[in-house]
């Protein structure tokens, strides 16, 4: 087997061989399985052991807690949607896997296909950045999204958001978020927070016949009893942010925080046992991921700090100036636990390619993301969630921030070392 693979790898250099047409894919698989044999060509003769593959692998590791929790949470909420509140851990996990893992597989395979085609045309190697994009994308999508929409999103994001600019390292915006933005504006009904989580009953009665609609591992009898029983309390399935917006629009004159925390307790919001996009719900898991990223120095703590600081300051100011009970009143703790704030701040904003370069610009960039996110959430009635918008917006501005910080650094350097 190993010999056979070796022969395939060698034959990719032979122009007449069939395998030479698959060179990008084969060399990507080969260098992933075993460290490449390349040696340094000139000084320095020794190199750091870290390369992009390792950096990306670390990010994937840090995303795993979020993914696993997302799987469990999806299953749990699916059970909730048919009125079963006390399902076991394994039941929920298995049910969640049925819904989430196909999305991850589709994301990797379809996105990987786009990446491979472009790499093959350009005669490049496949860049490692896709490892992270392919996992980030399903985590920011709602689990109920139809597969065809999901595929449209990833294809659009990879091709328009990344490959047209020249692949990993050249893109100006985060491709995973760009894919989500595409879905958000193209299919708002499937993406908006009102009914995201509610799974339609898995069996529908069409012309008197009961027909399966979705894959599920849930016992058929449970679903049938749910369908036949009209007394079961239905879970609304609204995401906390959508709920807050909804309550604010009703303008009932009381504090929004109380309304939200009546439905979702603060603890639930923090742990993430709430409806929402697959990976975004759990603040706790994001903190674990952030710990890995910061400890390994792969994710910039300055950006994360900037995000929280910006959001905190904006919330504080808004809380002071708000007179009546409106969205402006939502507290900081609710803001960071609701929606994708934590996930965005930890995994999306820290993307090095679309983010800024200097330490100072990282803080500014993070601060602006946090502040903009809160502003969009509270002041703009059209979008309950603002994290995606604010990150994409600041992605566009990060070269500008970098430019001014570079100029500032150059001036400072000149004064210090080239004064005469």
């Amino acid at each position: 087997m190993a010999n056979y693979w070796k022969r395939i790898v060698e034959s990719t250099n032979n122009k007449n061989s069939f395998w030479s047409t698959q060179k990008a894919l084969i060399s990507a698989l080969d260098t992933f399985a075993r460290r490449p044999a390349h040696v340094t060509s000139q000084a320095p003769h020794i190199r750091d052991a870290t390369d992009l593959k390792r950096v990306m692998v670390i990010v994937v590791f840090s995303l795993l807690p979020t993914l696993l929790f997302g799987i469990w949470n999806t299953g749990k909420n699916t059970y909730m949607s048919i009125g079963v509140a006390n399902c076991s851990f394994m039941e929920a996990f298995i049910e969640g896997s049925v819904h989430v893992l196909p999305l991850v597989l589709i994301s990797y395979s379809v996105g990987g296909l786009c990446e491979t085609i472009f790499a093959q045309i350009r005669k490049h190697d496949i860049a490692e950045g896709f490892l992270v994009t392919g996992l980030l994308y399903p985590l920011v999508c709602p689990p109920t999204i139809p597969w065809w929409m999901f595929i449209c999103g990833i294809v659009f994001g990879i091709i328009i958001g990344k490959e047209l600019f020249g692949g990993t390292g050249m893109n100006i915006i985060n491709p995973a978020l760009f894919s989500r933005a595409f879905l958000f504006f193209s299919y708002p009904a499937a993406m908006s927070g009102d009914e995201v989580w509610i799974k339609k009953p898995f069996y529908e009665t069409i012309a008197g016949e009961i027909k399966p609609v979705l894959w599920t591992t849930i016992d058929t009898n449970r679903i049938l009893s749910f369908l036949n029983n009209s007394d079961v309390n239905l879970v609304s399935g609204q995401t906390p942010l959508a709920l807050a917006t909804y309550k604010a629009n009703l303008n009932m004159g009381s504090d929004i925080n109380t309304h939200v925390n009546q439905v979702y307790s603060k603890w639930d919001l923090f742990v993430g046992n709430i409806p929402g996009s697959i990976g975004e719900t759990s603040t706790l898991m994001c903190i674990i991921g952030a710990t890995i990223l910061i400890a390994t120095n792969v994710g910039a703590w300055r950006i994360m700090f900037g995000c929280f600081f910006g959001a905190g300051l904006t919330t504080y100011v808004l809380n002071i100036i708000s007179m009546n009970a409106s969205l402006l009143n939502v507290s900081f703790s609710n803001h960071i636990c609701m929606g994708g704030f934590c996930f965005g701040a930890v995994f999306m904003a820290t993307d090095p390619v679309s983010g800024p370069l200097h330490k100072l610009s990282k803080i500014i960039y993070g601060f602006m993301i946090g502040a903009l996110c809160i502003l969009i959430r509270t002041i703009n009635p059209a979008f309950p969630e603002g994290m995606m918008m604010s990150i994409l917006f600041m992605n566009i501005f990060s070269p500008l921030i970098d430019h001014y910080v570079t100029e500032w650094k150059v001036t400072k350097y000149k004064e210090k070392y080239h004064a005469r």
Partner: protein
Amino acid sequence: MNVFNFNGGYNFMLRDGSDSIVSYILPSKIIGISPPRVINFKSKICVKVNQKIVSGDVLFYHRKQAHIKITSPVSGVIKSIVYGPKRVLEVIEIIADEEKSSQYKKFKKMSIDLLNKKSIITTLIDSGIWHKFRKINSNDFLGDENTFLKNQNALFLSLFSTEPHLSQIKFLLTNKNYMQFFLYGLRICSLLFNNIHIFDIDRNVPQKIFDFAHDISNIDLYQIENKYPAENSGLQHFLINNNKKNVVNISTRIFALIEIGHLFIHENVIKERYINLSGNGLLKKHHLIVVAGTSLRAILMPAMQKTTAKFRIISGGLLTGHKLHLDKYLSDDDTALHVSKEDTERIPLFFFRLGWNNMTMLKTWGSGFLPPQTHSISTNNNGEERACVQCGYCIDVCPVQIMPSLIMKASISNNIEKMEHLFINDCIHCELCTFVCPSKIEIVQHIKNGKDFIRKEG
């Protein structure tokens, strides 16, 4: 004693360095003198095949700078003159005379009180030591007498080395003779240069040097933080920060001072050179005193491991050195020889391991969380070249606080204005940014290309 600390840098701890034993090898029959390894060194040859020469005779000089002369360290007969591609001189091979019957060219003896700058420079140019002084950052030779005396100048010396497996000159200075030569050379230099800055990593400067520096007003001793690239004279110059115009900053190796001392005490050029051998391809790793121009084969073959593995011979440090071929001769630029096995091992699932033994400046491997440990040498690239992802590691490690990744991008787009705006000329070529780059981009090579482009365009 001023103490300097600097940003960035890294304390390399690598196995297979040379131990503190200094040994001699017998002089070989044929020695070869090659031009300094400087780009565009066009030589004008002064000797013919079969001509008899004595030690100290000029063999060739720089075609454009006639004061850069290379002399023969031994007496004998010219065996052959070998040219490389484009008829560039590669080496002049000499059949050396027996030790006893050896003659040498005598340089005029003068008492130290009678020496003036002009007579020192003339002697140094004639004896072929002048080319061992180089301008900092540009690595150019010094000008001739008149140009040299026109400007102020400062000499930078390091008594140590932090780059893995460069020769530790301190071992040599424990020898009484060499110490005497060194101090005399330092004395001569203190007459010649306006300022001399001597750096060491700790306060344990040899007492004699300490006393000597204390007595002479234009010699300053400094202490510098013990991490690579502390011995880089570009960095030392950057830290002292005397960016006055019309000051020529010069660096040289300690051994050049020993040569000067020998020249003025014994009135002839020194024959020996001092190198150290290291690397996992060698059985014996030690310091060596050999005759200048000995062939690498004679030096390395007795010590090399007998395996079929592919070896890489590096002259100089592991970070800034360059590859050599076994057929070459030892040049004056070679102060250390490193032989290491090419690491082409394909480790399965390398990128998923914990990596407690991987050498890294970052924290992406387990070793980043352990106390500093020694690592084995690996010439593996540890990955393939990718596009820059703006991780900013190169800016963090840069000891002179410039922005390598931005300069690299300006260099690729041939944007001279931008390159100069970002201080491309402050780069000291320490190669740390290339070492740390996770995208495996040859950043310093791009910066060098940018500098060349600026020079070409004027």
